[in-house]
């Protein structure tokens, strides 16, 4: 079971300041937001492919390959259903399919796939600690950022204990695969209860451990990893601003829109 997408590499993207990486993710979101035309989305796709190559993130892209491909058709259909403009190729009952609708739907699908690709790239190059540090840098309260990073750490632990409980109950002859979907879901309840109770047993100990380490003592905590902005970060920021501006200009001058 995949418990983290982070890939430990020494690439230039890995070495960027976490806030810059978060800004990069935002710039991709911002850029694709302004355009619907599939052709206008191609440069972002090329940039993402280049970045994946630099970051050595292909194993994660390979793991998500079917997801990246299969998410496009449903998104196309959703948007084609409501985009009722342009001369129709098929016009039957509620179906109004035009060339513009096809382009519009494909653009939307491509946009979602690019968003997913950007997030895979971000998660491949950013650790949980980097991410929570970037949240703190962005003035998210320390306790919230801490809760998030601690929860991240506990997820594999809980998944592991759930798996142990499932295996133990299978050994005792309990069949999790009997019945329809709802029946199967209900069959997992006896496996979830011990995990839940096991988690609750940790509450007091964890709270005491945190308080013993001065959690919430009002002093700004220090960090094991030190992050500073370097020239590389400044250059990356400048590039990202240029990309974001270009895409906004595409929208402003009407090059990003699909015309019926």
């Amino acid at each position, binding site marked *: 079971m995949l418990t983290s997408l982070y890939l430990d590499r020494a690439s230039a993207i890995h070495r960027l300041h976490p806030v810059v990486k978060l800004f990069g993710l935002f710039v991709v979101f911002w850029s694709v937001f302004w355009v619907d035309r599939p052709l206008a989305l191609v440069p972002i796709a090329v940039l993402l492919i280049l970045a994946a190559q630099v970051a050595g993130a292909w194993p994660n892209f390979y793991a998500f390959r079917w997801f990246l491909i299969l998410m496009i058709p449903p998104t196309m259909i959703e948007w084609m259903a*409501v985009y009722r403009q342009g001369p129709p190729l098929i016009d039957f009952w509620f179906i109004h399919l035009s060339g513009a609708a096809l382009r519009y739907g494909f653009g939307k699908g491509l946009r979602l796939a690019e968003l997913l690709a950007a997030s895979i790239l971000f998660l491949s190059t950013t650790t949980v600690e980097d991410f929570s540090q970037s949240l703190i840098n962005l003035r998210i309260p320390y306790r919230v950022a801490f809760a998030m990073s601690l929860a991240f750490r506990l997820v594999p632990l809980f998944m592991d204990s759930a798996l142990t409980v499932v295996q133990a109950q299978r050994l005792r002859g309990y069949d999790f695969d009997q019945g329809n979907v709802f029946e199967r879901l209900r069959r997992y309840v006896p496996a979830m209860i011990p995990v839940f109770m096991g*988690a609750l047993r940790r509450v007091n100990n964890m709270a005491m451990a945190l308080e013993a380490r001065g959690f919430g*003592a009002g002093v700004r905590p220090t960090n094991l990893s030190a992050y500073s902005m370097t020239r590389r970060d400044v250059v990356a920021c400048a590039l990202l601003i240029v990309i974001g501006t270009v895409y906004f200009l595409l929208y402003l001058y009407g090059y990003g829109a699909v015309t019926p």
Partner: protein
Amino acid sequence: MNTEKLSAHPMAIRGVIPQGSRAPHRPATAPPSAAPRRAHELRLMWRNTRMVVLSVLTAALYAAVLVPFKVVPLIPGVTELRPGNAIPVVCSFLFGPAAAWGSAIGNMIGDFFGGVGPGDVFGFFANLAYGYIPYKVWTIVAAPDQSPVALTPGTLARYVLAALAASMLCADLVGWGDNLLALRPFWVLGNIIIMNNMVAAIVLAPLLLAAIYPRVRRAHLLFTDLMPEIEASARPRRLVGFAMLLGGEVTAWLAGNLVSAGYWRPALVPAAFNVAPYTRAVALTVSPAIVIAIIGMLLL
């Protein structure tokens, strides 16, 4: 040195602070009397370390059930089978505001395993509402100290109402947010999320709740035990909040569906916005109802 002040500090009582050192400005777990009276419980809970831990556990449990099912998408890129959606409802009745934050954080962690996106910001707040509303609605529709696990028709009806109120606002917020960002039409997520949430809340959550609630109560880990300083606001105010929540979320859901599917073109929306794919028309029509629902939620 002010020894009186030092000895009064809870960490000093536990022997955490060595003799002679200065007491920190703020205690790790503020005593009830030190908490500001007017602070909302969603803010107040961050002062209580046990509540922080419970929010962490809720988040981790939620994510731990969400993540394995990321590989079973019902519609790729739209939604997957989410049995984990039972966790926020169960935890809401147990841990109150900690469950609200826990489900918001847990959903975000779950998204990290399947790709994050701009819509996840709305997902964060939608799940906050999904974890927050059930226990708040329960305090209005049920008698004081009534357990949500009793198997009577009345209790079940109240439980379904609480779960439906939470699911609908969650669906409205995500559908509206993704529509605002032009990622997906409202009618897709606005309906799938309600269905997904309600299946988990009706099929799984009652079973989990029946097994866990009595044990948590015996262990004095219910949020009412951990945060006795939480005071319910006046009943008229809560009733107004409940009415605003229900009115706002039902209006948002109906308007979002009708406008995004092209069945209703509101006269108040400028003609330039009333064209397919209606993303701006949905944004204009649904936003006021969402605002009303959120105000109602905060008044509960």
